[in-house]
């Protein structure tokens, strides 16, 4: 005779191998006393969360919490589900309730850090993730949160460094590859970013954000956009300032012809930057518009 735990174990197995729909199907068939088990509601919430049905996930987790208000896993996942819906106040209440029960849990501290970061409180976010890192420096989830907070603070070098630290321990961490790619692309290193985005997408082809990042990086490394690399690397303002400085210097040195040729070339580059990128974008995305 099958014990009530076996369907739950099977459901958890399907979740662990990335098949939340099958896990949910198994749980739909469970009834009666099985529904009193908080683990049922946790796994149901996890399946719904993995399917991006965050409101339903939160509802399921709340049902589980009525049976086990002290369950840290339920509270943690509830916080994540509320965060995905933008309900940061509710997400904070859930994660603080979990932290009351497990105040030195690095994963919970990291989750709270990401939450307050989303609320714009980056200084507090950094303190939380740094504390989590002190408690468990090898934790990949903590590493991801540290990378994310560094990126959000605009410290792209620190984000790249933290992301690479994760990859030395977990070379197949798709999220770490994606975040390192994002940090590199902000530093103008589009080729390096493309490699990481491509790796992230190959490790997790289901994640649309990764596929979109690969497409974006192919766009920015397209040979037609090579003349515009200075704009990507140094920004429009610095390039314009540099161009004006060169132009004025040439004129001051009496090199009017050189200045004229340089001015024409710069104007041509500007016109190129207005015309070619939108056309290239239209060409590359044309098959993907619904």
């Amino acid at each position, binding site marked *: 005779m099958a014990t009530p735990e076996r369907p739950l174990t099977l459901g958890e197995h399907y979740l662990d191998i990335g098949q939340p729909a099958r896990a949910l199907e198994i749980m739909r068939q469970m009834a009666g006393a099985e529904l009193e088990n908080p683990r049922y509601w946790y796994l149901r919430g996890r399946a719904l969360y993995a399917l991006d049905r965050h409101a339903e996930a939160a509802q399921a987790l709340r049902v589980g919490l009525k049976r086990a208000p002290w369950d840290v896993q339920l509270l943690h996942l509830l916080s994540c589900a509320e965060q995905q*819906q933008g309900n*940061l106040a509710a997400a904070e209440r859930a994660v603080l309730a979990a932290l009351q029960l497990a105040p030195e849990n690095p994963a919970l501290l990291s989750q709270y850090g990401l939450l307050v970061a989303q609320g714009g409180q980056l200084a507090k976010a950094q303190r939380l993730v740094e504390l989590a890192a002190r408690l468990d420096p090898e934790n990949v989830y903590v590493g991801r949160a540290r990378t994310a907070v560094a990126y959000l603070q605009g410290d792209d070098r620190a984000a790249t460094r933290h992301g690479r630290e994760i990859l030395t321990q977990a070379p197949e961490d798709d999220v770490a590859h994606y975040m390192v790619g994002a940090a590199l692309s902000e530093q103008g290193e589009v080729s390096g970013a493309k490699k990481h985005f491509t790796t992230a997408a190959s490790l997790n082809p289901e994640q649309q954000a990764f596929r979109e990042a690969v497409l974006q990086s192919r766009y920015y490394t397209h040979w037609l956009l090579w003349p515009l690399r200075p704009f990507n690397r140094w920004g429009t303002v610095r390039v314009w300032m540099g161009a004006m400085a060169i132009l004025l210097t040439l004129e001051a040195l009496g090199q009017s012809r050189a200045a004229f040729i340089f001015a024409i070339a710069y104007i041509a580059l500007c016109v190129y930057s207005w015309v070619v990128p939108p056309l290239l974008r239209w060409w590359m995305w044309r098959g993907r518009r619904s």
Partner: protein
Amino acid sequence: MRTTEREQDYAPIAAELDALLKPSLQDYQPRTPQPEKRPWQLSYQVFVAFFGGVLSATLVAYLNGRALRLSRNQLLAILAAGLVGFLATIVVTLLLGRASMPEFLSPGDATTLASRAIALLTFLAFYRLQKPADRVYAFFGGEYGSILPVGLMAIFGLGFVQWLLVKMIVAALAG
């Protein structure tokens, strides 16, 4: 001895936890999905600064700052930077009007060049103020609105206003 050492290690963490685990998001309001309330791409503001000038760039940066939910101090910093940029434009215009120019550069061209440079430098200040909030917005899946309607109004409307104000003030000060 070991227990005392553990207690000594734990005490600072416990104190830090007490400070950090106070709720700070209970007043947070979820974002509305209306397109007109969305922020704009930061990089497009450079065109407003280049073609419209400091006042145009300031308006767009301020409105975008509100959409990004910048703090009151940050919004005031945007306005202050805009004011400094505008005053710098007046001062530079005044000085260039009195200075002797090299042959290859007319006073009008010098003034135009300088006011664009000031507008772009002011944009850099606006960019730094908005960038962290913009990153947070984009990182957590925010979508951007189109800057075109407000941008064009700022360029032509406030661009003309700035040109007029600078001319009037410089004429008053020079006269």
